[in-house]
């Protein structure tokens, strides 16, 4: 349903998100997040609570009710901020966003 396309104009918003994945958003970042977070349900990124409040694993939702959630092997997080940054970058790529500066990519963890 989303109409908005991520372009080079959105790089400042990626910077804003990577600096603080929680909190108040500029209108531009909110627009980018609305596109990213409205994706799905098939293949939507979610995080599995493998240890309550301590450890999470990346996973993807299936297309239909009754099908299993698919864990992404080897992608685990020790805090929610790291998970948010990692998934933001994955979605940026999935949605055809332009190359991001190296310093943003290295903020993943």
């Amino acid at each position, binding site marked *: 349903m989303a109409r908005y396309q991520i372009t080079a104009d959105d790089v400042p918003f990626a910077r804003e998100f990577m600096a603080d*994945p*929680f*909190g*108040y*958003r500029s*209108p531009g970042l*909110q627009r980018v*997040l*609305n596109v990213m*977070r*409205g*994706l*799905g*349900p098939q293949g*939507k*990124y*979610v*995080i*599995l*609570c493998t240890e*309550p*409040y301590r450890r*999470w694993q990346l*996973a993807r*939702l*299936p297309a239909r*009710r*009754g*099908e*299993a*959630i698919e864990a992404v092997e080897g992608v685990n997080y020790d805090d*929610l901020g790291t*998970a*948010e940054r990692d*998934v933001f970058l994955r979605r940026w790529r999935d949605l055809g966003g332009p190359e991001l500066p190296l310093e943003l990519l290295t903020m993943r963890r």
Partner: protein
Amino acid sequence: MLSLIAYTNTLSAAPGETIAVKVGSYGARTYRADLRRIIQGDRHPDAPGYKDEAIALDLGGERVARHQAIRAGSYVQIADRGNVLAELSSFTLAVPVLPTLIGDTERTIFHLTGIGLELLIDAEGRACAKLGDARLTLAAPLAVKQWILLILSFDKGELCLSALTRESEVIAAGKTSAALSRNAPVAVMIAARAPGENHFDGKIDSPVLFSRALEPLEAVARLALPQNLSRLPDLVVFWDFSRSIDGTEVIDASPHQLHGRTAQCPARAMTGWRWAGQCQDWRQIPELYSAIHFHADDMTDAEWQTDFEVTLPKSLKSGLYAIRLVPDGDEAQAYHCVFAVRPPRATASGNTVCFLLPTVSYLAYANHRLGLDVPGTEVGMGRLVEIDRHHAFLQEHPELGFSFYEVHGDGSGVFHSSRNRPVVDLQPGIKGFLGGLGSNVWQLTADTHITGWLEHQGVAYDVITDEDLHRDGLALLRQYNVVLTGTHPEYHSLQMLDALQGFVDRGGRLMYLGGNGFYWRISFSDAHPGVIECRRSEAGIRPWEPGQGQFHHAFTGEYGGLWRRNGRPSTELAGLIMSSQGFDLSEPYELGEAASDSRADFIFDGIDRTLGRKFGAFGLSGGGAAGMEIDRADFALGTPRNALILGSSKKHTDIYLMTPEDMLDPTPDMSGTQNDTIRADLVYFEKEGGGAVFSVGSIAWAGAMAWNKYENEVARMTWNVLRRFDKRN
């Protein structure tokens, strides 16, 4: 994943009463049961600590866990009597249908078991009839959400099937040779081949069976005058779905009286094939509400066998309890069957404080799948959806049935929720989707922030449930000085509202410790024990609409939807009304001038009430006391004129938006950083006769109470109010 799930026959029992426990293994081999009193269920590291209490009661030793299946899907079942059906040698079945889901599998409309006669829609969406070994399939697939009249007749070895439009145009027809033979007892299934097998999704309108073969237009002419059908000598049965709409009975209006029953609560009071907007209330012209909407995923009664029973000790104090089931010796995998021990029925407990456990709202959210089915949930959460093991289980087991937040497989809204099935999110310590950054707990577990605080303060209190309140009314509340709500008491029956309103009108004191309370109307029905109905009419934040002409509940005829649109806005009871929701961050209140009013002295005892000071800038639910779902005072909508607005949240993120009922003319300034209506107000008002109300208008309040192990100004204020409210003068 969960290796064992269970449910009890009730969510409330008095001391000395017996509870039946129904357990189903999903991998567990054995389990042990014990009785626990639940005190604080949030497991977040910053929460006060998970706390329950073992009750010394022998529930037996190790038991073998057995699998119990759940067969979702609604249907009607009718037994033959007097061989009325078994001795048919020729017949015509006429039935209007409106399929809402086709493809993938065969979907049975009508099955005459024992004769092997079946009318169905095949996996390609084509109408099809089976009789013995014969199979007759019409060429053109049916369209979804369009009425079609199917006419199936048999005589002298010939089976004929026709499909007609509402305008009596024959759009497809066919015939084949077939033989009629009886090989087993005869019964009728409508909307399924058998329970759990080949269920139909869509509307079926009052099937009629005649004892001879009729030409299609001859059958159409008869259906045009349903009131005359019972006088026709060749009428066999006329299952008139417009009768007994509020119950489970399916009435045969023919002289044979082959009545049947619905199972798994299909939607009744649904517009039939003759409805074209003539009325909106099924009670006015019930003949137009001649359809039942069946769903392959309807589930209101798992019908599990009881594994064991627990008789509660007569000395057991009222409270929040669970029968804990520990599978294969692994306590970390324990399943909790939560229930309230209400005070004794015949005698007063002596307690003057009552916590009203919002079990109706728990059922409204029972097994909800917002983070699984609805992509936009993550937008509203403002962060990734977290999946714990109960969510993963729900994803793989949709047969557990849904909440009011889901749509059925055919996209239509879920009108019914039930406690007669495992409700896997009605357990302490589990994650929510909507609980905000921090604990991210919702409903029951969030409410244990309140029970934990009551225990921390050493308060002697009773716990009653919404269903107790609905059944017993104000009589149940008379012994109390104070009633405390949960964090999100959103759904109420008229009887529940009347009891609470009557309580405060007669000197009772209400502490509304939540947000978005008293919002939606629900109905109970004696014909459907343990089930509630909700039709989300007109406005409100809602995932579906009930469909045109279908806004009145089948259970009671009540007009569904918001209490605000039913003459009972929450402002009357609680002084506040739903304003907005967002599930990321919460905010503090900023104290207003009314905080310094002398009437509020007791509320601010020991608390700085400097004008403009931020109050409650902390918490487990989004980091503030005001958030998640928030209510405002609104004098134009009924907030009492004497209400003191002690404080208000002054900003929220732009995830918080105005509600549909407020957003009459959408403009781009209706979000949390821009619009002043998007706020939580902290309100206190007094009633004539000594009654009083303290309302926080925020789901996040209790998460702030539990901050720093209940040592904070929000908990202090709550204590100030409770201490004062509990004194009668």
